[in-house]
């Protein structure tokens, strides 16, 4: 069937901010959908609150709304744009839920909007546990014993029928949020209560435990003529009980015979047909009992998912793109498989001739009190994918691509320790993020595959592979690298050992291994991902390295630029950097360069094979990048766009003779090296907070004596404020130096005077060596001391005087010139008592680049990439700072609801996973929208608990008055209450926790508090207030820990009644 002519315009809903369970894979799917529909001449309307996405680039849609994904706001967009259809399957659970809300509230009917891709009935049937179970039993598929409960009474009744351990899954939550496995009554009650609360329909599925069963996924695509294809099968190395997002997964499935595979294939197709997924991609999950092959269905996602992104990258089949085309009426046979240059239609099943391994990336270090046991609730923040000729090769490539300082299956347990065996056993049984390393250590300890299987339930096939790697390591351990001959070296590399891991085993340097390897002429070849196992001759340059006979890279002799991507997402390094890399590639392609992308993050747009001329899906380690450089010999390399990941390689790449274009790596080093940087600031006569660098506790104490407390302390060379803290006294400093960081000469500790109550500012600028143009000045809402990535900010600044801003501009220009910046530069400044302080400078793409670009209507990453390739700012006609008339506010989004029990206080260590943008005529309305989009907008009235630290008390009265005027009634502790009463404000009093019950936490637990404003003094205050914040999180009471944010929130509430929507394209025209 050709495309539908009755539709003219289509609304796509994005996934909103990056959160755990919903990451940039939905930028990938949304961007593909936009492109696919516009190619067919449909008018595409897009809503997504996340500015850091490629899909919200003004060129991607006809009408782009960076607005909250919330049905009332989306209704306004529908009212204005009058779309014929809504495509809800590209934006994860967020988009599906929003679409269902629109349907439920009659909006779609009112404006005559048709849901395409998935109908309401199908979504309900797939997501409602009861309906799904009924449907599966109807088509004769097995499911674990289970029943649905809507309250605790029902929950207990169900539990008795299924026994312990019990699996609890709340309905309609993202990434399995709020779910878990209970081993006893107490845990059961806790998880159920939380789940009932989190589920928008107050619904739980309580089921028989099939923990330890093998877990499989099938990625299925179906069209309106009932043509069905399987894109990819995926086997989870971690068995049932661990969320698939937190599992190591392997494609294709390894341990199924054809008979079993076809049963699963037939079941997948039957599921799609029964659920009624008429067009598009879905994901079906299965569990299989390893003892007798009993197969049960776990769930299905009636939409493009994280696994579809993985399957797309694993096979080269663009699922989102095809799903979008099917939604508008095409059938699979009418679409080309583009990776084979249209030689085959999309109606086939990809065959792959390599092994793909995905490993999740965790960031538990950021949430010290979080339960880091892996369960059915997803906790990982990113993932890495690797392609290899064998499982061992792909596993080891993925491990080194993770960027957790592992270069392979590095040992993590001291095997000589008394408790080594117990430690390993317990880590194999109850998995945490690093279980794979414990599995390896178990073999190092001499355990058998059977023993390790009994503990971990990881399939023996995978265990034998891991054991194989370990036994190879034991064979070569301690060998002199020069005794390794070509055959041996080839055999080792074929198993995926990195030069770095071999160096550890040979007790030599990584470069000596590389030298030896090159002497023996053992080098990787590059093979193509072509979706057809080489059956057809294809031209698409989607490549991976491996140690085999023949190289298929066929590099061209065009003028080419290589862009190093950002690797796996983690806190501090997310989608923003992928956005920048994609822009660099697109801009330079437009200018006639051949662009080459290297990245290993399957969730990204940059790893789409058609974004760059050539894509190398490779870990971003020195070894792997050098290998690509050797084959491609690019004219220039961009290391400044992928965050810290490629920057770490800059010096070594330069040393090896690679031509790094843009800002010189030495300038990056200068900016990061505190001592060199201070010297530069002195030369420029710029101020920075008093500071020092300590290499020992004694030095640190001396510095503290000299500059006084409070101090910001952190190790040098960190991203996202890792291990950064504010210390208020000598004891805290001592504790920090002892416990938090291992002081070594390699990474000294930086101590800065903490500028309390200062206003923090971020400035992005571009310099071409001659001119400097300010991209944007962002004023933070939270005061200095909160990590810039976690702070809300406003562009333009909302309260700084123009002469202060001018002075800041001048300082930025001076530094950019001094550093010889060619490209982007980000500066963080603080303004305190009439003085400007430079906090830090990063001469590279920053997290704020996409936000600024959207706010000012100019793609900074694009312009700066051209600058790096030699085109001046003048030549690009970008010579003047753009100060928009509207306000844009960026707000951070946090994963605290996944880590209950972790204090959600903001501090110098970054903990947000994503961001949203609010656009408004003035600061207040923009701020309000950002809050709405972030999902933590304050209620308009009710009971507010106010408790301010002494430093903020002078603002208490003003705040109290504004709160009262807005219609809030005040509750406070004694000292605050007294001040408020004195000022004539009515205020209820409540005990501090330390004063005994009934206290404030009781009030929160009883749902008597609607809003909390609580700023805290120091570490002691933090401990006291933590209970308040933790309970606030559980009971979903909005809270703020800074006075600045409280005022901004009040301004926003006032603006709220005149909520408007703004089309991005009309904003800058």
């Amino acid at each position, binding site marked *: 069937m050709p495309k539908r002519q009755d539709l003219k315009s289509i609304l796509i809903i994005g996934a909103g901010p990056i959160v755990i369970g919903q990451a940039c894979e939905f930028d990938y799917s949304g961007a593909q959908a936009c492109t696919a529909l516009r190619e067919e001449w449909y008018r595409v309307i897009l809503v997504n609150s996340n500015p850091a996405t490629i899909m919200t680039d003004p060129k991607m849609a006809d009408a782009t709304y960076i607005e909250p994904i919330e049905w009332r706001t989306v209704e306004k967009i529908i009212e204005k744009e009058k779309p014929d259809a809504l495509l809800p399957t590209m934006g994860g659970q967020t988009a599906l839920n929003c679409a269902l809300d629109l349907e439920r509230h009659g909006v779609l009917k009112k404006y005559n909007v048709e849901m395409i891709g998935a109908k309401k009935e199908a979504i309900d049937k797939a997501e409602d546990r009861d309906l799904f179970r009924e449907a599966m039993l109807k088509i004769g598929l097995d499911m674990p014993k289970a029943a649905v409960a809507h309250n605790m009474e029902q929950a207990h009744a169900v539990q008795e029928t299924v026994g312990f351990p019990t699996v609890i899954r709340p309905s309609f939550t993202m990434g399995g949020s709020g779910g878990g496995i209970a081993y006893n009554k107490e845990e059961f009650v806790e998880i159920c209560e939380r789940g009932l609360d989190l589920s928008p329909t107050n619904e739980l599925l309580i089921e028989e435990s099939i923990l330890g069963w093998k877990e499989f996924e099938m990625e299925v695509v179906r069209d309106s003529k*009932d043509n069905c294809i399987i894109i990819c099968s995926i086997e989870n190395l971690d068995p049932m009980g661990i969320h698939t997002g937190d599992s190591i997964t392997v494609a294709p499935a390894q*341990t*199924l015979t*054809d008979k079993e595979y*076809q049963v699963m294939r037939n079941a997948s197709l039957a599921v799609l047909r029964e659920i009624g997924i008429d067009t598009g991609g879905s994901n079906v999950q299965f569990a299989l009992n390893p003892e007798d092959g009993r197969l049960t269905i776990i769930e299905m996602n009636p939409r493009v998912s994280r696994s579809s992104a993985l399957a797309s990258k694993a096979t080269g089949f663009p699922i989102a793109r095809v799903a979008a085309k099917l939604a508008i009426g095409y059938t699979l046979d009418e679409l080309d498989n583009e990776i084979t240059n249209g030689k085959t239609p999309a109606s086939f099943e990809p065959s792959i001739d390599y092994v793909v391994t995905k490993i999740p990336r965790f960031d538990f270090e950021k949430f010290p009190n979080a339960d880091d046991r892996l369960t059915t609730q997803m906790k990982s923040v990113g993932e890495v994918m690797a392609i290899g000729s064998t499982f061992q090769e792909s596993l080891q490539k993925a491990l080194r691509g993770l960027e957790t300082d592992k270069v392979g299956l590095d040992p993590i347990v001291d095997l000589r320790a008394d408790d080594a065996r117990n430690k390993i056993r317990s880590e194999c049984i109850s998995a945490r993020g690093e279980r794979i390393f414990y599995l390896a250590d178990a073999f190092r300890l001499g355990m058998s595959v059977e023993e390790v299987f009994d503990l971990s339930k990881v399939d023996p096939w995978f265990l034998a592979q891991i054991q194989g790697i370990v036994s190879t390591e034991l064979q070569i351990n301690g060998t002199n690298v020069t005794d390794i001959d070509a055959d041996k070296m080839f055999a080792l590399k074929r198993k995926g050992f990195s030069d770095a891991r071999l160096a550890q085993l040979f007790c030599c340097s990584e470069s000596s291994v590389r030298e030896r390897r090159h002497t023996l002429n053992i080098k990787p070849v590059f093979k193509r991902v072509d979706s*057809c196992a080489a*059956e057809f*001759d294809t031209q698409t340059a989607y490549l991976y390295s491996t140690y085999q*006979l023949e190289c298929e890279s066929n590099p061209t002799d065009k003028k080419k630029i290589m862009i190093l991507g950002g690797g796996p997402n983690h806190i501090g390094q997310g989608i923003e950097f992928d956005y920048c890399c994609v822009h660099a590639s697109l801009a330079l392609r437009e200018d006639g360069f051949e662009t080459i992308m290297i990245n290993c993050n399957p969730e990204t747009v940059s790893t789409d094979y058609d974004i760059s001329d050539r894509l190398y899906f490779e870990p971003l380690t020195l070894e792997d990048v050098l290998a690509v450089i050797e084959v491609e010999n690019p004219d220039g390399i961009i290391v400044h766009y992928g965050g810290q990941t490629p920057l770490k390689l800059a010096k070594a790449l330069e040393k090896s003779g690679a031509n790094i274009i843009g800002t010189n790596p030495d300038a990056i080093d200068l900016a990061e090296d505190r001592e060199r940087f201070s010297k530069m600031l002195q030369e420029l006569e710029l101020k920075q907070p008093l500071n020092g660098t300590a290499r020992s506790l004694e030095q640190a104490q001396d510095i503290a004596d000299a500059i006084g407390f409070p101090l910001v302390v952190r190790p040098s060379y960190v991203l996202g404020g890792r291990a950064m803290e504010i210390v208020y006294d000598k004891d805290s400093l001592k504790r920090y130096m002892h416990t938090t960081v291992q002081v070594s000469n390699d990474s000294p500790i930086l101590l800065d005077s903490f500028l309390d109550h200062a206003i923090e500012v971020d400035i992005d600028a571009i310099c071409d060596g001659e001119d400097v143009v300010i991209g944007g000045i962002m004023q933070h809402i939270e005061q200095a001391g909160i990590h810039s990535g976690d702070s809300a900010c406003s562009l333009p600044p909302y309260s700084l005087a123009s002469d202060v801003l001018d002075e800041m501009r001048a300082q930025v220009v001076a530094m950019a010139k001094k550093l010889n910046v060619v490209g982007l530069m980000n500066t963080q400044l603080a303004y305190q008592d009439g003085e400007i302080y430079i906090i830090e400078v990063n001469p590279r793409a920053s997290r704020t680049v996409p936000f600024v670009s959207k706010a000012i209507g100019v793609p900074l990453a694009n312009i700066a990439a051209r600058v790096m390739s030699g085109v001046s700012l003048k030549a690009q006609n970008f010579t003047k700072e753009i100060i928009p008339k509207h306000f844009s506010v960026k707000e951070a989004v946090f994963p605290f609801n996944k880590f209950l029990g972790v204090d959600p206080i903001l501090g110098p260590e970054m903990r947000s996973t994503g961001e949203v943008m609010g656009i408004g005529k003035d600061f207040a309305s923009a701020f309000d929208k950002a809050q709405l989009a972030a999902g933590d907008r304050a209620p308009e009235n009710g009971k507010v608990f106010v408790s301010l630290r002494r430093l903020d008390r002078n603002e208490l009265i003003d705040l109290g008055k504004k709160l009262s005027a807005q219609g809030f009634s005040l509750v406070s502790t004694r000292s605050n209450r007294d001040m408020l009463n004195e000022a004539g404000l009515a205020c209820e009093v409540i005990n501090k926790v330390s004063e005994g019950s009934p206290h404030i936490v009781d009030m929160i637990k009883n749902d008597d508090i609607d809003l909390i404003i609580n700023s805290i003094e120091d570490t002691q205050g933090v401990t006291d207030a933590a209970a308040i914040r933790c309970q606030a999180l559980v009971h979903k009471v909005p809270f703020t820990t800074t006075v600045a944010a409280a005022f901004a929130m009040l301004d926003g509430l006032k603006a709220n009644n005149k909520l408007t929507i703004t089309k991005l394209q009309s904003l800058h025209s």
Partner: protein
Amino acid sequence: MSQAALLALEDGKIFHGKSIGANGETLGEVVFNTSITGYQEILTDPSYAQQIVALTYPHIGNTGTNPVDEESNKVHTAGLIIRDLPLAVSNWRSNMSLGAYLRLNHIVAISDIDTRALTCHIRTQGALKGCIITGDDIDQEAAIANAQSFVGLKNMDLAQVVSTAQSYEFNQGSYSLEKTKFNKLDAKFKVVVYDYGVKKNILRMLVDRGCDLTIVNAQTPVEAILAMNPDGVFLSNGPGDPEPCDYAIKSIQTLLEKDVPLFGICLGHQLLSLAVGATTQKMKFGHHGANHTVQDLHTKQVMITSQNHGFSVSEDNIPNDLEVTHRSLFDNSIQGISVVNKKAFGFQGHPEASPGPHDMSGLFDTFIKKMSE
């Protein structure tokens, strides 16, 4: 340490690897198969007689072998080429590793081969004569000469080589993973199967649909068949070139004259086409895989099919009473035919799957329908 092995191709290309099967040497036509699953079914498929199969998926042997997944009573492939034989077997049904199974069946096989490079080579050069030799210090020139000495498949009638010597009855239905046994059903139709190299799953799927089967030798005179008064005759798959099988073509012509319902798969489909007057041709490297997209020209429905053929029905001189019913969307080649005004039809791919998707299983129902008419 396992022994070394070497793969030599007629054009002089040499691949070094490890021996993972029996010792010795083997000759055959080297083809590649892109199916990810089903190596045991492939090894035991009689259609692979005198072919050395290279599997493109790297890990072959993960699930070991078991007695149920055999498509015939022995391994028919002349040899096996893979990239990696895994360290462990993992499957609840497995009772023997692939390596042991190959040795037991005296099959020479080689691993640690850059199978993708080999596939690219065959893709450009076409299927090549080849030779696997195990052992150290193999004379490469001799190996190449050996490869060249293979007679090839063109004009080779292999159907009579693999066909059953004795007629036999078969009443075992499909294997049920749930019940872990073969289904059994009451028979309603008497069907004679011309065995040109039949796969067991074809027989099982016929039994599933109520057929009482007699499997006969490929050269059984048609009179003997007619004397059995069958409701239908099934023309099986099989190896080699269809054209030299004149005995089969003649028998089929007689069956067509009597309008006995006929269903041909693969070689059977080609023989049926030849019987009506079409011609066949040797393909460059054939179709061997489980992901081939085939369209039903009437319903426009697209099916993912299992394929294994090196010859195909030619587009030239298609007689008027042959209707093309299915085509490959990979290369537009003829995939299904029916004989005008007769209850006879054929399919080039493998509706019985095993290995591969079950999308085409409806063709067996069509056969039953034709017998019921």
